[in-house]
């Protein structure tokens, strides 16, 4: 049974554009979870990966040892192939001092009619450590999925956290994203969400960055494109609490449908006279000049819109 699920998940992963060979490589750290079952795990030197299955999901402990800089990105693959189900991933991440890793997560729910995918993560990025996290979702066209990723990230001095979440393929369904990062001295937090809302998709994005340490830096960035009846709400919050802290909230929401609705709520707060936090939010239709420029190169209007939207969601 497990072998069958393993094959089915890999097949879905390949169809979504993933490289099966990477998940099979012994040199690449990886973890493959279907529903609440761990189908495969590959540990590489310096990476401790422990898992524990429970009724509705899997608890994952992910640790990179002190000073270890993992050469190849670690691949995580989370999926649920049946039409209904719940998958909870409870993740604890610890990056020890001076360690570095890039993680590419693939979340695959191609048949979802009534599926919930929840991730609760606690992350500790040690002094001088660096964690780059890139999560891409592959959804089907039914839209019956709720994606609820929540993370609390503590970044010690000179630590770096960079994350991006991309839900561009298929219908988003419901997204309730909530990432909160706290930065100590000279630490860096960059949060990015890119999503393409269609039909009746509902997208809620909440990015919070607390710049608690001197010279810490934060960027809360979001790119949402909404068509049909999709609704999007972005709350980007950045708090400058320490001298020379620098933060920026950058929100772009494009509405290209008669009934689509976009809302942005940027909050910038400064509690230190030497801190500085800025924000920019652009909400509305596609830029006419951009469309005309591409049409003047010979593209039809619809083709021009596709190029612009693809760029926004890629960039």
């Amino acid at each position, binding site marked *: 049974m497990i072998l069958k699920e393993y094959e089915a998940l890999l097949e879905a992963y390949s169809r979504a554009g993933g490289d099966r060979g990477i998940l099979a490589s012994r040199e690449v750290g990886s973890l493959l979870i279907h529903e609440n079952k761990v189908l495969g795990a590959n540990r590489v030197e310096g990476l401790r990966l422990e898992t524990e299955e429970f009724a509705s999901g899997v608890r994952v402990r992910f640790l990179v040892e002190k000073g270890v800089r993992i050469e190849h990105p670690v691949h995580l693959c989370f999926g649920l192939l049946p039409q209904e189900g719940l998958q909870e991933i409870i993740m604890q991440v610890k990056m020890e001092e001076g360690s570095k890793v890039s993680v590419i997560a693939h979340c695959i729910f191609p048949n979802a009619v009534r599926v919930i995918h929840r991730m609760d993560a606690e992350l500790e990025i040690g002094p001088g450590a660096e964690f780059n996290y890139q999560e891409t979702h592959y959804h089907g066209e039914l839209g019956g999925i709720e994606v609820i990723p929540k993370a609390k990230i503590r970044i010690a001095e000179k630590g770096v956290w960079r994350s991006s979440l991309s839900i561009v393929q298929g219908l988003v369904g419901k997204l309730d994203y909530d990432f909160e990062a706290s930065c100590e001295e000279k630490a860096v937090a960059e949060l990015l969400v890119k999503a393409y809302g269609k039909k009746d998709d509902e997208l809620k994005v909440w990015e919070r960055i607390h710049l608690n340490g001197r010279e810490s830096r934060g960027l809360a960035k979001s790119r949402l494109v909404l068509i049909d009846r999709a609704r999007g709400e972005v709350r980007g919050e950045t708090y400058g609490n320490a001298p020379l802290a620098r933060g920026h909230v950058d929100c772009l929401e494009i509405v290209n449908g008669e009934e689509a609705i976009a809302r942005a709520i940027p909050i910038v707060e400064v509690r230190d006279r030497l801190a500085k936090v800025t924000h920019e939010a652009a909400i509305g239709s596609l830029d006419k000049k951009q469309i005309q420029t591409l049409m003047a190169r*010979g593209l039809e209007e619809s083709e021009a819109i596709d190029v612009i939207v693809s760029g926004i969601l890629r*960039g």
Partner: protein
Amino acid sequence: MNINGKAVLDGLDLHVGRGEIHGLLGVNGTGKTTLANLIMGLISADEGRIVFEGQDITQLSISQRAKLGITLAWQEPARFEGLTVRNYLQLNGRADPEELEKTLHLVGLSPEEYLGRFVDSTLSGGERKRIELAAVMAMRPKLAILDEPDSGIDMISLPYIMQGVAEMVKGGSSVLLITHNESSVEIADRVSVICAGRIIQSGPPKEVCQWFKQNCQVCPAPNVPREEFRR
């Protein structure tokens, strides 16, 4: 042509010959950009006709005009998130990779450095303008309308822009070079001066530029053509 009840272009008659660089000179607010937008189809006129290679294109869309071989380089080109210079230059699929590199070299940009960069706000104004010109060149247009390619750019970029214009004509394009700077139209075959939406002078660059200096640059009412210039 009226905008908000005011005539912006009025009785304008302009002919750009095949393989010609035609300079259009005029001070600010005389209707240069309006004319560029009108030819490209971004706006439509109340009356009059635009004819391209014998075909009336007045009612055609922007895309249809572009497919006939007309294109426009904006005075302030748009910027695009997530679109690389490579993809931007290949939008119409005419330029092969070797040609792209050559085109970038012609506008003084290194392909190694620029092809992978995004056409977004990380580019300076001069870089963006040079890439716009390269994109126009890559399209191999029959008519390139260049709206103030020389404005807002540094002295290093300017010769590359002019070199790009010359190369385009060598490649068989006609160019309508719009500017308020008479030294930029020295490379033109013919120059016309626009004032208050009318062509008030036309001829060889040397004479017309001299005339422009003597009359337009010292004109007390630059947007009102003097009676003797009305035709």
